[in-house]
């Protein structure tokens, strides 16, 4: 296998790592809206640590390996429109994803506090549309990146 082929394989694995984390978070968002006891919420949040390294390492590797691929390729250039679009979308993905993470981190803290008021607030925030919409936004940007990577508009 060539250097380019290795970089492409690892770039793809990084993208799958992000997709796996987003799927896990989607399950947590959907199930979280239906939880009705503090125990259920605490149990659900035990899944979160699986997603953190998958999305963190996956996102950084996907960007770095993508840039390496664009530089190494004799077919594409880093200033091609679809490559620039991917980098811009990646930045947007990171921004919306970070905002979503912050929202659910706060909910997790409340769920782990244990007081009656904190539990009610955690349940209300899990059912509120804010978190779900933020997560949906993150998913949407990821799908746009995927479409851009596969269709390579302008290439």
């Amino acid at each position: 296998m060539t250097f380019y082929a290795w970089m492409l394989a690892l770039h793809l694995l990084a993208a799958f790592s992000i997709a796996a984390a987003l799927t896990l978070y989607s399950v947590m968002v959907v199930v979280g809206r239906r939880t009705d006891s503090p125990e259920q919420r605490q149990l659900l949040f035990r899944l979160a640590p699986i997603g953190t390294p998958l999305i963190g390492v996956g996102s950084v590797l996907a960007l770095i390996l993508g840039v390496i691929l664009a530089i190494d390729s004799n077919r594409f250039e880093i200033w091609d429109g679809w490559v620039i679009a991917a980098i811009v979308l990646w930045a947007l993905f990171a921004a919306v994803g970070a905002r979503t993470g912050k929202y659910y981190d706060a909910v997790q803290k409340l769920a782990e506090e244990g007081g009656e008021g904190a539990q009610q607030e955690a349940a209300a925030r899990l059912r509120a549309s804010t978190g779900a919409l933020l997560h949906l936004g993150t998913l949407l940007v990821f799908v746009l990146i995927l479409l851009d990577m596969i269709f390579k508009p302008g290439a």
Partner: protein
Amino acid sequence: MTVLATVRPHSWDLAVFVHVAGAMILMGGLVTAAGAGLIGWRDTAGGLRRLSALTLFALALPGWIIMRVGAEWAYSKEGWDDVPDKLQPTWLGIGYITADAGGIILLVALILGGIGVRRARSGGGAGLLKASTVLAAVLIAVYVVTVWAMGGKPN
């Protein structure tokens, strides 16, 4: 083959997108199912083990079907139908073997999980749900190799 993949005609893109999107849903479903099953391995209530089995049904199975339909579509679009088996590249063979063998393993995991969820209502089924989790974890390893092969296209 790497060159062929990176400069493929745009008429193949939709089939490839369906294939990749299905594979990502499949991998995400497997990671969530294995993660929930392993984290809830020792839980007496078994909530996460049930979530593990339900995730296999709700995400991994549809993901596998979409991935497999996309694979056949892309295979036909790329003209591999007209190439004798002996001349087909190794990565294509890896993809076919792991997708189909993985499908059988997934089916076994779904059956074990389904019976496990049913028995869990009367307090049993923990062993079956754990077996389903182990199979999901095995499938993750299989599909990581597949993603590497699809990206790097070794021959």
